[in-house]
């Protein structure tokens, strides 16, 4: 099962021909075109404050072979021209060019920058950036920047800069067509010698033009995209880099006359093998760990493998702190990490996997990428695609996925961060890799029975004065436990205010009890008393029945979206309520029993109410049956959400009896 197909697939590209419909040439540095001067608004992104007129990058891979030693280098020529459309866009005049500090192998040079201002009579004034205004700064151990600020920038200005980047190795970076402001034209050119084999894939939903040219000794590939709207953050967005229109570049191999072909990119099988032999990964596993007497004593009395697995998982969680959640490799080494009781995400789980093996469980290491880190691209093998090491445990044909850096996740619940993604499996201890040389051993990290589930039970009454008071009991299962468990680490004080304050202003609450905070295999239960003075108009009073569910506010109010909506898991909400009203009030017409289903049946909302003798019984349920909605499904989702929240938030109206 191929779980998450990236929305941006390798697209069919239109050929770039001499008679191309769109002009893909860019003017020379310093030459401003009349249409650029005349531009007052971006037609395809009308509210944009600035627009990139063009952004081009020419990557030139080169190689020289001297004295039996090969030297690779990359020269990149970058150009950018931006038009400032209004006040809010003037900040585009502050430029930061980042580069790598590692080994002093990268340099930025030959910067030219100037601002063009056009007077009402059409005269163009040029303000050049002087070298004294260029700053160089070290940002961190690995990164530095060159920064400069354009002089004389105001609405209507055009700014442009160009520079060269020289790197003493083959620098393969992705090219992003899209930016946070609209781009009129983005052009990416890669030029490489025939001896090099390169894979470029354009990942996009917008049309892209492509041209492949051969010269005597090299190949030139050009990608052009035009009229690209700008992009920003949105609710339930997994990882922005998965959705940016882009070209991914990978150096595959180099073959020089007289020598063997060198593979620059391993296959998944080779990558698995290499990692398995790596000192910071495969060689760390299964070493003996001392000081585990407490665990040994516990395990001595238990035979059941599932219980044994839970014991080991809880033991490692209790003892190990994580100092870097994004590093699946060892830094100090597993043994030192165990001694100091702190390690990288990789070290903590190496310890877990080693101890699970010692407890005689069938366990395999598995690499995965968290939602935020981005989707794994299964076409291009790369070590950097992953950021998590997990334990893949098999007991009686059932698989459990464990990450011992998860503080609030019960053993057996797939960690939230990696749910609904692909994991790369490694062989069991001392077993050969079970793969063909090319492919990898992939595992679908998904369980449709693991939910975000919440059940709310309300018992309340309205008194003669029109005040509502009652008890609430909220049970949070599986993924619904996570956020609240985290908050409870800070104590019960002000807990109800923090969790419910936003949508329940003016509600009073008391007698908070929490059950199963530390027992993560059971639902987390919150119990408290609450009361609220009901709003009244004339003889009417009204009250909400969608209480404390987490479904108070529709998150999908925006009309345009460019990314999938990712919920991570299936979801289930149930609300039960019993309300009594005083003798001197009657129910007005109640909201109807209703069932609302998405066209593809992926979301089901049900509501039933019945009232008799002053007692109202309410039952509402919402079921989300799939964890992801793709871009083309968003319109339906938005429409449905609007209706659904309208129904959930309908209130019950009661009216004072009029004397007969």
């Amino acid at each position: 099962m191929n779980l998450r197909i990236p929305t941006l697939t390798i697209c069919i590209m239109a050929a770039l021909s001499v008679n191309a419909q769109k002009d893909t040439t860019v003017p020379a540095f310093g030459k401003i075109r009349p249409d650029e001067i005349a531009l007052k608004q971006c037609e395809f992104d009308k509210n944009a404050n600035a627009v990139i007129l063009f952004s081009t990058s020419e990557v030139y891979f080169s190689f020289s072979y001297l004295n039996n030693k090969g030297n690779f280098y990359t020269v990149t020529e970058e150009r950018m021209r931006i038009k400032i459309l209004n006040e809010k866009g003037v900040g585009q005049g502050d430029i930061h060019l980042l580069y790598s500090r590692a080994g002093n192998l990268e340099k930025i040079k030959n910067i030219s920058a100037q601002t063009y201002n056009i007077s009402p009579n059409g005269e163009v004034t040029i303000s050049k950036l002087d070298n004294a205004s260029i700053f160089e700064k070290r940002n961190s151990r690995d990164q530095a920047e060159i920064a400069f600020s354009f002089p004389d920038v105001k609405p209507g200005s055009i700014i442009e800069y160009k520079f060269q980047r020289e790197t003493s190795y083959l620098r393969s970076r992705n090219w992003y067509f899209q930016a946070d402001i609209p781009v009129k034209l983005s052009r990416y050119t890669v030029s490489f010698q025939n001896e090099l084999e390169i894979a470029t894939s354009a990942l996009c939903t917008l049309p892209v033009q492509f041209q492949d040219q051969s010269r005597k000794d090299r190949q030139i590939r050009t990608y052009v995209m035009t009229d690209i709207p700008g992009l920003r953050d949105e609710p339930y967005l997994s990882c922005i880099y998965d959705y940016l229109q882009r070209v991914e570049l990978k150096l595959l191999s180099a073959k020089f006359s007289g020598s063997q072909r060198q593979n620059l990119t391993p296959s998944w099988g080779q990558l698995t093998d290499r990692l398995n032999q790596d000192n910071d990964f495969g060689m760390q596993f299964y070493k003996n760990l001392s000081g585990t007497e407490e665990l040994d004593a516990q395990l001595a009395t238990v035979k059941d493998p599932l219980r044994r697995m839970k014991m080991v998982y809880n033991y490692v969680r209790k003892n190990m702190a994580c100092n870097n959640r994004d590093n699946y490799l060892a830094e100090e080494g597993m043994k030192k990490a165990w001694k100091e009781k702190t390690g990288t995400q990789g070290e903590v789980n190496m310890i877990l996997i080693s101890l699970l093996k010692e407890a005689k469980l069938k366990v395999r290491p598995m690499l995965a990428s968290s939602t935020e880190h981005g989707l794994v691209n299964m076409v291009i093998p790369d070590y950097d695609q992953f950021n998590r090491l997990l334990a893949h445990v098999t007991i009686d044909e059932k698989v459990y996925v464990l990450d011992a850096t998860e503080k609030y996740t019960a053993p057996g619940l797939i960690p939230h961060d990696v749910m609904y993604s692909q994991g790369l499996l490694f062989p069991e201890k001392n077993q050969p890799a079970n793969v063909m040389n090319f492919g990898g051993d992939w595992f679908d990290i998904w369980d449709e029975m693991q939910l975000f589930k919440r059940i709310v039970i309300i018992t309340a009454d309205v008194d003669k004065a029109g005040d509502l008071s009652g008890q609430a009991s909220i049970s949070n299962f599986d993924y619904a436990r996570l956020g609240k468990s985290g908050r409870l680490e800070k104590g019960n004080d002000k807990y109800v205010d923090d969790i419910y304050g936003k949508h329940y202003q003016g509600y009073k609450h008391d007698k908070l009890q929490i059950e199963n905070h530390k027992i993560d295999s059971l639902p987390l239960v919150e119990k408290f008393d609450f009361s609220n003075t009901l709003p009244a108009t004339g003889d009417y009073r009204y009250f909400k029945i969608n209480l404390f569910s987490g479904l108070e506010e529709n998150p999908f109010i925006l009309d345009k979206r460019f990314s999938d909506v990712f919920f991570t898991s299936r979801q289930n909400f149930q609300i039960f309520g019993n309300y009594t009203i005083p003798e001197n009030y009657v129910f007005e017409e109640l909201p109807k029993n209703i069932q609302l289903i998405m066209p593809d049946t992926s979301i089901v909302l049900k509501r039933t109410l019945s009232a008799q003798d002053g007692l109202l019984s309410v039952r509402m349920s919402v079921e989300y049956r799939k964890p992801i909605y793709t871009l083309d499904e968003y319109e339906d989702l938005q429409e449905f959400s609007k209706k659904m929240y309208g129904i959930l938030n309908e209130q019950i109206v009661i009216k004072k009896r009029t004397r007969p």
Partner: protein
Amino acid sequence: MKKNLIPVLSFLFAAVTVEAQVIDYSAASIPDSLKTNAAVVKRFEEIDFEVKGTDRSTIKFHQVYTVLNKKGDHILGFNQYTDPHTSISDVEIKVFDAFGKQKQKYNKKDLTVVAVGSGFMDDAYYNYLMINTASYPVTVEYTYEVKRRGTLFYPDYTIAGHEESVQYSRFVATISNEAGMHFRAFNTSQKPVVNNPSDETVYTWKYNNVKAIEKEEGTADFDFRNPVVSLAPNNFSYNGYEGKMDNWQNYGRWAYNLQNGRDALSAPKQKFFQELVKDARTDKEKTARIYNYLQKNFRYVSIQLGIGGFQSYSAEFTDSKKFGDCKALSNLMYSALKSVGVKSHHALISAGANNGLSDPNFPTQEFNHMILCVPNASDTIWLECTSNTLDFGVLGNFTENRNALLLTENGGVLVSTPKSKSSANTAISKTVIQLDEEGGAMAEMRVFTRGEYKDMFISSLHGRTPDDQKRVLVNYLGFKAPDDFLIEKKDSADGFNTIIKLQYEKMPDFSSGTKMFLPLNVRKLVNGILPDGKNRKLDYYFEHPFEKTDTTVFYLPKDFMVDAMPGNMEKKCTQGIYTARFWYDENTNAIWSVSDFKLLSHRLPASEYQAVATFFTAVNKDLNQKIIIRKKS
């Protein structure tokens, strides 16, 4: 013989009476009284601050904290700032478990160094380490030394932070007589022990068993209940520039000298400004014209390198680039005014809503911003030179309600900036809503805004994408989420107006049978209540005082009539007043609602907190009422 005996004897006695402070790393020995209200217990602290001459200082830290729960996580983040004048050394960090057993050890090479990156360009770095723990309580020990060149900044001695209790803390300041020191104690009456060996003065503070104090929400930066001693130099040097800080006048003189002479503008440039104001009749008018010109042609870029953190680029340079930071832009304004014969002063200030007061009796370097003051017999004009959108002469809550230090030829003069007025921040709206039989509605709102609301509308609403606008309307301005909308600017004679057109498929919040329950208007006049504060001790601060008025007319569909309307409302308290009136006009089959909310002051005294919190809760309840209409039978 006897003579020699005595020195030996006194040496022996000194050894016996020396206080040996033993550190207990185990969490079990913390007395219960120190755990109440505490997320952190400071077990041991010895800080030695030393100033040599007027240009070098060192601070040695030795601190041991036990973090009791997640609320104290901030203690587990070690972060020290370095720049060309500040360096750290001898860093040793140790982590102990609940029993006091050492688990980990780190030193300087384990720190991550990262650029601060505030503004466009600066030369400062963070040196940090995050300590991770699997369980609480956990104990950490920090030992490190900070060396500084330049003595503009003396450290604060924070005896205890919020929700932090203290077992033992000792602070010693050894100050050369050349530099000298003045200090101010907050929330502690303890006086330091002072000694005067040779040419320096030694101040010693010592504390034992200080109980933890809770943090209250919504307090101003300068208002707190935990004990702190602030220190400041009498004489200092910074980046080679020497100065005095024994009083505001002298400190102002130093800052004035840094700025002096950077105001030169070329003759053609001066002529340009003179032309700009040539037919202006008053100084005020001249100032307004120049301010307006700067707002339209310059932008804010922050570059803080070395003394550039305190001295602006020259006026000529700023003018050539058409950008600058608060100092450069204020300086350019100053120079432009000078060229047309208007006198003004650079003014240093501690900016930020409800930040920094500047105490007339305690001069210290706490300024982070510069504005311009144009003195005038009848009304002084204050200018925020970094804003492209503020009205002329309006500062906003960023710098109102505090003291600023004017830099004059006679040194520094502390004067107060204007107080925030509710009538300066207004939003007056008129809304017309047409309802249809199915409950759909078309609404048009015209909003006139001044002050903070005008600024907010300009920066967050106008010129933004429709999706960003919708987010602001619904999440910040309390609008009912529309299905479609359009926002337009309308500059008119009476000021800045915004037209918001909205379309709703379902205007009622809910229905019952043929009865529709409508909200009182398309947006809530006030959104939110005050946090719980039964035994509040400190004043509560709002962002700014304001006045909002709304007039809404609902035109009912032909076959509909009023079923019930809220009665007129009025709620009052010392800080605010809310009124609402409702009536039905038979001729037009329309329901009118006029409501008004005033928050009179940004500062709410602790003694009145409960009463005002009750007021807000009551007003929110009123705003949740509905207008009920139904189909004529």
